[in-house]
C-alpha cells in the first residue's frame, strides 16, 4: 500500500471534523466559526508538516498516489474528446488512451498512459504498463496527428513498459524503438506532460516532444527506484536510497534541461485539488500550444533535434571542457 495513505489519515480525520462542525453550525444556526478556524489552522499546519518538503522517494509515492489525477482526468478537462482505438492489428491496449480533442482554440490529438483509479481498473489497464500493442496504438495516433496536421499532446504516467512474456514475444523493444522514431520526427508541434510516474523507456516512448512539462510531484526516471536498487544492489527494498540517487524529481529534470517547466501542485499533492490541477495544467498546455504555433515546422524540427542532441554530460579530454548540460 502507498505509505502516503497512512500519513493522510490524520488529515482525513481533521477534514471530517471540520465538515461535521460546519454542517452542525449550519443546521443549528450556532456559531462555531472560532472552532472551525482553529481546526483549519491545525489542518494547514499538519499539511505543511507532512508534505512541506518531500524526499525523492516520497515524491515517487506521491506520483503513484491512487487518488492522483490520471490521464483520463486531464482528458475529461478538454472541451471535446473523441476517443480512437487500436493498433490496427491485434489489440486495443487499454493502458494507452487517445483520440481527437479540442482545447480552447486548438484542435489536437491527445494520447495518455492510463493507469487504474481503483484495483479493478488497474487490472483492466495493466497498472498503466503498455504492451507493444499499446505503443503501436500510440504511434498510430501520433501519425494520425500528422495526417490531420494537428498538434499532439501526450500525458505520461507509467511505471514502465509491461515486462511480460507476451510483450517480449510481440517485440516490446521494436515497439518502443519505433515509437521513438515517430515522435522524434513528427511533423506537427508536440507537447508532453508528465503527470505521475515517468518510468524509463516505457515513458520515453511517448515523451519526445517540443515541450516537456512536469507536475511538481511527478517523477521521471531511468528506472523505477525498485528496479534500480535490484539491478545495482540486488535488493529492491533499498528503493528509497535509489530514489535519492536517481535525481528523478521534476526539479531535477528541469535542472537537466529535460523538463522545460514545472507546474506547481497544491500542498499535499494534485489529488487535494484535482479540478484545480487539471485546469492549471490544461491552461498551461493551451498557452504552450499558442507559443508552439508561432514557429514554422522547420524551426520546430530543428529545435527538437537540437534539444535532444545536447542532452548528456561528458568530459572532452582534448578540449578539456565539459560536455553539454
Amino acid at each position, binding site marked *: 500500500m502507498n505509505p502516503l495513505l497512512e500519513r493522510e489519515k490524520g488529515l482525513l480525520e481533521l477534514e471530517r471534523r471540520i465538515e461535521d462542525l460546519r454542517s452542525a453550525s449550519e443546521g443549528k444556526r450556532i456559531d462555531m466559526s472560532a472552532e472551525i478556524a482553529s481546526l483549519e489552522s491545525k489542518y494547514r499546519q499538519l499539511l505543511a508538516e507532512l508534505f512541506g518538503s518531500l524526499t525523492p522517494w516520497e515524491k515517487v509515492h506521491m506520483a503513484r498516489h491512487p487518488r492522483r489525477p490520471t490521464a483520463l482526468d486531464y482528458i475529461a478537462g478538454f472541451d471535446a474528446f473523441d476517443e480512437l482505438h487500436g493498433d490496427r492489428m491485434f489489440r486495443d491496449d487499454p493502458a494507452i488512451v487517445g483520440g481527437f480533442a479540442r482545447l480552447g482554440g486548438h484542435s489536437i490529438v491527445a494520447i495518455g498512459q492510463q493507469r487504474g483509479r481503483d484495483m479493478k481498473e488497474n487490472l483492466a489497464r495493466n497498472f498503466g504498463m503498455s504492451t507493444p500493442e499499446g505503443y503501436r496504438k500510440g504511434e498510430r495516433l501520433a501519425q494520425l496527428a500528422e495526417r490531420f496536421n494537428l498538434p499532439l499532446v501526450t500525458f505520461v504516467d507509467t511505471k514502465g513498459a509491461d515486462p511480460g*512474456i507476451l510483450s517480449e514475444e510481440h*517485440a516490446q523493444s521494436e515497439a518502443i524503438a519505433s515509437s521513438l522514431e515517430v515522435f*522524434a520526427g513528427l511533423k506537427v508541434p508536440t507537447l508532453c506532460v508528465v503527470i505521475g510516474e515517468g518510468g524509463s523507456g516505457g515513458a*520515453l516512448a511517448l515523451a519526445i516532444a517540443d515541450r516537456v512539462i512536469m507536475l511538481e510531484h511527478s517523477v521521471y526516471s*531511468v528506472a523505477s527506484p525498485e528496479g534500480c536498487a535490484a539491478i545495482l544492489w540486488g535488493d529492491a527494498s533499498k528503493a528509497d536510497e535509489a530514489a535519492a*540517487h536517481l535525481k528523478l524529481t521534476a526539479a*531535477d529534470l528541469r535542472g537537466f534541461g529535460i523538463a522545460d517547466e514545472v507546474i506547481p501542485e497544491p500542498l499535499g499533492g494534485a489529488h487535494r485539488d484535482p479540478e484545480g490541477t487539471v485546469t492549471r495544467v490544461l491552461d498551461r498546455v493551451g498557452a504552450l500550444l499558442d507559443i508552439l504555433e508561432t514557429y514554422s515546422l522547420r524551426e520546430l524540427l530543428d529545435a527538437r533535434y537540437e534539444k*535532444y542532441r545536447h542532452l548528456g554530460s561528458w568530459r572532452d579530454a582534448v578540449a578539456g571542457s565539459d*560536455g553539454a548540460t
Partner: protein
Amino acid sequence: MPMADWLRGGRNRDKVRDDAAQWVKCPSCGEVLYRPDLSANLDVCARCSHHFRMRAHDRILSLVDGDFEEIARDILPADPLAWTDKKSYPQKLADDAEKSGMDEAVLCGFGSIGGYDVALGVMDFHFRGGTMGSVVGERLTRLIEAATLRRLPCTIFTASGGARMEEGMLALMQMAKTTAAVLRLKASGEPFITVLTDPTTGGVSASFAFQADVILAERNAMIGFAGRRVIEQTIRQRLPDRFQTAEFLLERGHIDGVVERANLKPTLERILGYARAGRERRKRAELSA
C-alpha cells in the same frame, strides 16, 4: 588513426589479459581452451561453437580491411549525478577501464569492410555491462551524424545491459538523442544495419538496435527489452532457456537473421554490396536528372 597505433591500444589491453590465465573454460561445453587459439577462432569455442562475448577491439580487427579511423575517442565519462553507492561512479569507471582496456562501452569510427566504406560502432559488454550513458550516446550520435554527412552506411554492433543507472535520466535521454540521429541518417537515404550480440537489452534494444533497416543477431545472443530476471519475478516461474535468444526472436519475426560469427564479415560485405548498388542507382538517377 593508423592501425598500428591503434593496435597498440589493443596490446596494452592484451597485457592486462596476459596476467590472467592463458586457459579459459567454455561455459557451454566445459572444454578448456587455450586463449590464443580461442582468439584466432574469433572467440568461438572450437568444440561447441559457443560464442564468447567479444571485445570491441577484437571485433573491429576481425571486420575492417586496414585502418580504422576512430572518432569521438576524447569524449569521456563525467559524473553528472555525483553518484556513490558502494563505490563512487568515477571509481567504477576507473576499475572497468583497468579491467577491460576500454575507456567507455563503445568504440566508433570509420573503416572499410571488404572494400565497402562504413561507419562502424561497436559496443563492449566488458565496460559497465555495455550500459549506455552520455558517452555511449554521444559517440554513437557523432558516428551516425558523420555517416549522414559523409553519406556512408552505418553499422552498429550492440551489446548492452541497458541504460546506465549512475547517469540517471541523462542516460535515458541517449535513447532519444541516438534516435534523432538515426532518423536523419535514414532521411539521407543511407542504410542502417545493426548486429545484436549477447546481450542486447533495455534502452539499447528499445532504441537504435531495433531501428535499423537490417537487423542481424549473433547465434544464441540474449535479446529483449525486460531482463530475464525481471520477467521471472513478475510471472513467478522460470522461463524456457530459448526465451529471448536470437533464434527465438527469428521465429517470432523480430530480426532478419541469425549469423554465426564466422559468417558475419562475409554477410555484412554482401549487405554493404547491396547498399552500394542502391547508392549507385541513386547517383545515376541524379546524373540523368
